[in-house]
């Protein structure tokens, strides 16, 4: 029975929590006004800081997240201490005592009220696609247009370039050598496709250009493979020489 009454009381206090703090600090408002009329800037600042601290503390308490009651207690302590020193002229020791009293008073007054856990941090945005993924997306658009138009040569170029991208996916270390190729070929092909889609009549030289593009894509694949083979050849020679020098052969 008493437990239920306490639970209901806690619920009521949770709904209204924090609103009492500015009421405790309310005498500072007329004090600030009178200080202002009197031209006492230090007094106005002290009173404003004290009342402002209570408003901030009330705001923190109204939010009701974990640790907010501690934050509110410290805000009340700072506000009370500053207003005691600047507006009340109580001296540093007495101001510190007042601040400590406000700190513990706020903590005690809002004890046992439920606090929610802070929300989880927002998920980081997905990393931007790498150069190979981006090129694949662009190529997929080109392939879709080529398939729609039934253009065999365009499809041939697209599949040759897809072969290059497959090689690069398997060996990303070759990307620096192929970056320029990807930029020039993909940009050019995209522009051609855009014009064709816009209704342009294909010029006479277009089939030859598309053949060239397909050939250079295949040549690039061959060159990259040759370079890899040459690197392996050098590795084999170096290892053979080493074995001979060490007397294993």
């Amino acid at each position, binding site marked *: 029975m*008493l*437990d239920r009454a*306490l*639970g209901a*009381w*806690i619920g009521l*206090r949770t709904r209204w929590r924090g609103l*009492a*703090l500015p009421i*405790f*600090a*309310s*005498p*500072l408002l*007329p*004090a*600030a*006004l*009178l*200080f202002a009329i*009197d031209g*006492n800037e230090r*007094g106005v600042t*002290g*009173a404003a800081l*004290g009342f402002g601290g*209570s408003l901030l503390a009330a705001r923190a308490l109204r939010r009701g997240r974990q640790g907010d009651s501690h934050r509110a207690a410290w805000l*009340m302590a700072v*506000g*009370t201490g500053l*207003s*005691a020193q600047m*507006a*009340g*002229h*109580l001296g540093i020791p007495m101001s510190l005592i*007042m*601040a400590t*009293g*406000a700190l*513990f*008073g*706020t*903590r*005690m*007054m*809002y*004890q*046992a009220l439920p606090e929610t856990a802070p929300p989880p941090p927002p998920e980081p945005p997905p990393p931007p696609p790498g150069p190979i993924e981006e090129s694949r997306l662009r190529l997929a658009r080109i392939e879709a247009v080529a398939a729609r138009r039934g253009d065999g040569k365009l499809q041939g170029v697209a599949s040759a370039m897809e072969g290059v991208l497959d090689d690069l996916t398997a060996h990303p270390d070759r990307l620096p050598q192929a970056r320029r190729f990807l930029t020039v070929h993909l940009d050019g092909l995209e522009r051609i496709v855009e014009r064709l889609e816009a209704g342009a009549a294909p010029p006479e030289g277009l089939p030859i250009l598309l053949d060239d593009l397909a050939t250079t894509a295949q040549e690039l694949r061959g060159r990259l493979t040759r370079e890899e083979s040459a690197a392996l050849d050098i590795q084999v020679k170096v290892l053979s020489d080493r074995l001979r020098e060490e007397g294993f052969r």
Partner: protein
Amino acid sequence: MAERNVTTLPASPPLTTPLVWAWGGVLLTATTWLVGIIALFRSIGGFFD
């Protein structure tokens, strides 16, 4: 043997909690509210200096 449901309810605060709240209110009255009243009297006193 059947397993028992051992879900624990959150512990309810002690019945003395309202007393703690009241003491907190007393402390705030003796500090924040009192500082405000002192500042108010100081501001009124400023007119008579």
